């Protein structure tokens, strides 16, 4: 990295740093909010650290101590790759200050390279938290030399670099292909969804190659498991040998390989960077509109329409918030052809579950995908600088947020119903049983949209530079995702067990009542919070 890279990177970090605002702002309320968010993040990091330490201790207990470096590489690689696919296009291309930066004496490589480094550094604290947790677990069981600690931490910072670079290159290919089309946004969204779905399902394929079919064999044959993964992905071997055996050649290979790949990827991207951005920063205007008869709608419906246009008009918003819906529909359609058992078998390899037990969990399996992200978490913040438009219109706060919830439901309910129907048909469920699961699914979607809206208003952030800051890194999203995922997991497992013990009807009715009640509470909070905004 040259001086200009460092200068630009430093400025990018400073320009989005809340600490800079804390230092320079005179607005007490703003400062209080920043401190609150900072504390919330510390709590989240600690929660993640605790969870990851417990997971690492579990690995140690079942005799997977030697496999820990490789497991860390696997987790960080998968996370870094998936997250970069989802966000790299909005970080690297068509960003807000593109004109300003490109008009300055920066080369294309400096601009795009610094933007990549910025994206990397923003996610590094999450990756480091997991690395430290795994190191704690490893240290407890392996009792390594003192030198292992700093080298593990330093080398683990390089683990996400290679998958992030590969994902960036893949996103570049997607962007380059789509830029050739008139409606490039639609083409890019379709291609990105295809990459996301392929990457998601390739996990099962890769696991199949590595695991030789059963969980037991992994536990018994740790050495062969490690060996197999290392054969497929060399950086895992370099990390293990570098961090635990302190092998200099492996340390150099991991660091040198990352740096070389960085240079290579950005030399390639820089060559077409301006052309790509030129295509992405322009939209097709036909100027051929003829005024036809217009329709009158209710305020909430109009608001919902506006929200859906916002959703479909932003690629990061569409791909991040929409991936779950697309995957749910994909799983539902797949179940029609391969049956419920195969789908469940692929997810729960080796787990002691029967097809009948799983049926009661169908709404939760689908909701795990449709509810993993709610549009309403981001939609209040995404108003951004346009917030004045809805604030200055004669619309009640109730209509504003009902419109946002309605837009979420327009998208989540059809996805939930299609996926549930697919799984029910694939699982040969009865008609009444299917109707019950669909109704429960609808209740879950309403809960997701309402709870998301509560988080969205509570942690509303209007001064952002890029959609990704709201959609991917927003506090509202994190606060929504964690409890929602934990609750869904509990309901998923609990639903399966309780249906075997007490019966499916009990599970469905109880879940509907519980989620209905939670929705009512969230709705009351939404209205109270909205009134204050």
């Amino acid at each position, binding site marked *: 990295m040259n001086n200009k890279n460092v200068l630009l990177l430093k400025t990018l970090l400073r320009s989005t740093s809340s600490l800079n*605002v804390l230092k320079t702002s005179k607005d007490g309320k703003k400062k209080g909010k920043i401190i609150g968010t900072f504390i919330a993040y510390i709590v989240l990091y600690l929660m993640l650290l605790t969870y990851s330490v417990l997971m690492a201790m579990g690995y140690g207990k079942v005799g997977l101590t030697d496999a820990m470096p490789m497991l860390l590489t696997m987790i960080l690689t998968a996370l870094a790759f998936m997250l970069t696919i989802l966000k790299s296009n909005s970080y690297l291309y068509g960003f807000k200050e593109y*004109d300003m930066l490109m008009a300055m004496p920066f080369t294309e490589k400096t601009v795009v390279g610094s933007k990549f480094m910025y994206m990397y550094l923003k996610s590094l604290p999450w990756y480091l938290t997991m690395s430290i947790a795994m190191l704690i677990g490893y240290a407890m069981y392996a009792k390594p030399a003192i030198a292992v600690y700093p080298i593990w931490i330093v080398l683990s910072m390089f683990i996400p670099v290679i998958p992030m670079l590969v994902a960036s290159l893949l996103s570049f290919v997607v962007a380059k292909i789509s830029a050739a089309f008139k409606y490039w946004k639609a083409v890019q969204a379709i291609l990105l969804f295809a990459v996301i779905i392929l990457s998601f399902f390739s996990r099962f394929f890769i696991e199949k190659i590595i695991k030789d079919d059963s969980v037991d064999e992994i536990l018994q044959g740790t050495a062969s498991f490690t060996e197999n993964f290392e054969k497929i992905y060399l950086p895992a071997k370099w990390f293990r040998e570098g961090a635990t055996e302190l092998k200099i050649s492996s340390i150099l290979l991991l660091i040198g390989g990352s740096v070389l790949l960085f240079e290579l990827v950005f030399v390639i991207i820089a060559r077409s960077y301006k*052309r790509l951005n030129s295509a992405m920063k322009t939209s097709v205007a036909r100027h051929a509109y003829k005024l036809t008869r217009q329709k009158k709608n209710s305020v909430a419906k109009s608001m919902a329409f506006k929200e859906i246009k916002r959703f479909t008009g932003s690629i990061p918003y569409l791909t991040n918030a929409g991936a779950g819906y697309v995957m749910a529909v994909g799983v539902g359609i797949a179940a029609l052809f391969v049956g419920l058992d195969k789908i469940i078998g692929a997810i729960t390899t080796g787990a002691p579950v029967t097809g009948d037990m799983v049926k009661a969990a169908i709404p939760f399996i689908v909701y795990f995908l449709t509810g993993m992200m709610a549009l309403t978490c981001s939609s209040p913040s995404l108003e951004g600088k346009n917030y004045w438009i809805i604030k200055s219109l004669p619309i009640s706060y109730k209509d504003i947020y009902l419109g946002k919830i309605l837009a979420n439901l327009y998208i989540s309910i059809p996805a939930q119903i299609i996926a549930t129907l697919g799984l029910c048909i694939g699982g040969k469920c009865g008609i009444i049983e299917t109707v019950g699961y669909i109704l429960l699914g609808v209740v879950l979607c309403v809960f997701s949209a309402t709870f998301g809206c509560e988080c969205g208003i509570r942690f509303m952030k209007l001064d952002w530079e890029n959609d990704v800051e709201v959609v991917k890194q927003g506090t509202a999203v994190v606060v929504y995702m964690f409890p929602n995922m934990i609750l869904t997991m509990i309901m998923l497992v609990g639903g399966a067990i309780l249906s075997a013990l007490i019966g499916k009807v009990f599970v469905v009715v109880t879940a509907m009542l519980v989620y209905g009640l939670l929705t009512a509470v969230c709705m009351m909070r939404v209205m109270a919070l909205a009134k204050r905004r």
Partner: protein
Amino acid sequence: MSVLTIENYTKVYSGDKKAADNVSLTVESGDIYGFIGHNGAGKSTTIRAIVGVLDFTDGEIFIDGHSVKKEPMECKKITAYIPDNPDLYENLTGIQYLNFVADVFDIDADVREARIKDYGDRLEITEALGDPISSYSHGMKQKVAILSALIHEPKLMVMDEPFVGLDPKAAFMLKEIMHEMCARGSAVFFSTHVLEVAEKLCNKVAIIKKGKIIAQGTMEELTGGKSLEEVFLEGVNE
């Protein structure tokens, strides 16, 4: 001496829409060159190509003899660009942003201090430079963008609607600064919708319509005793 030369510049967007069609013009040292046209006529597209943020389909653009396509860094070092709606880093303070730009252009501390003080005082923004840009009004952001453009004393200043949002005193000051720059041998190229401003300020003007230059030259040549507004309306209504 030519500071900006545009030769047969053409920009075709995906499909077949020509945003700029065979545009040619020359801006000499000391010129204040007005670029006028309707909304969507191709002004901003041309300006973005000049400053190197937009690639183009055909033609060549030279800044002080350097090709924008082949020597972009040489061109950018001597050019300043002020967009119509500057997207500055909102969480930085005004002074942090100006230091960033000064670092990019490698301006010595003493020189940058003197220039920030001089232009900051004249634009009446110095006292606000310690506050985050997010707290600024549109006009204040515009002033910071102007200040940042002047920090390296560019040979060519390119501006897209520079007077929008500026208070009358700042607009007057900007016009003065433009004259001073030209007296030093630099040149100014800017787009505007305000024909009165263009008429009083510019010595040369080009009118663009649907991507094509329909008239250009010195103010006297172009107007020939009529007002610029009359000439413009005659041209675009043809």
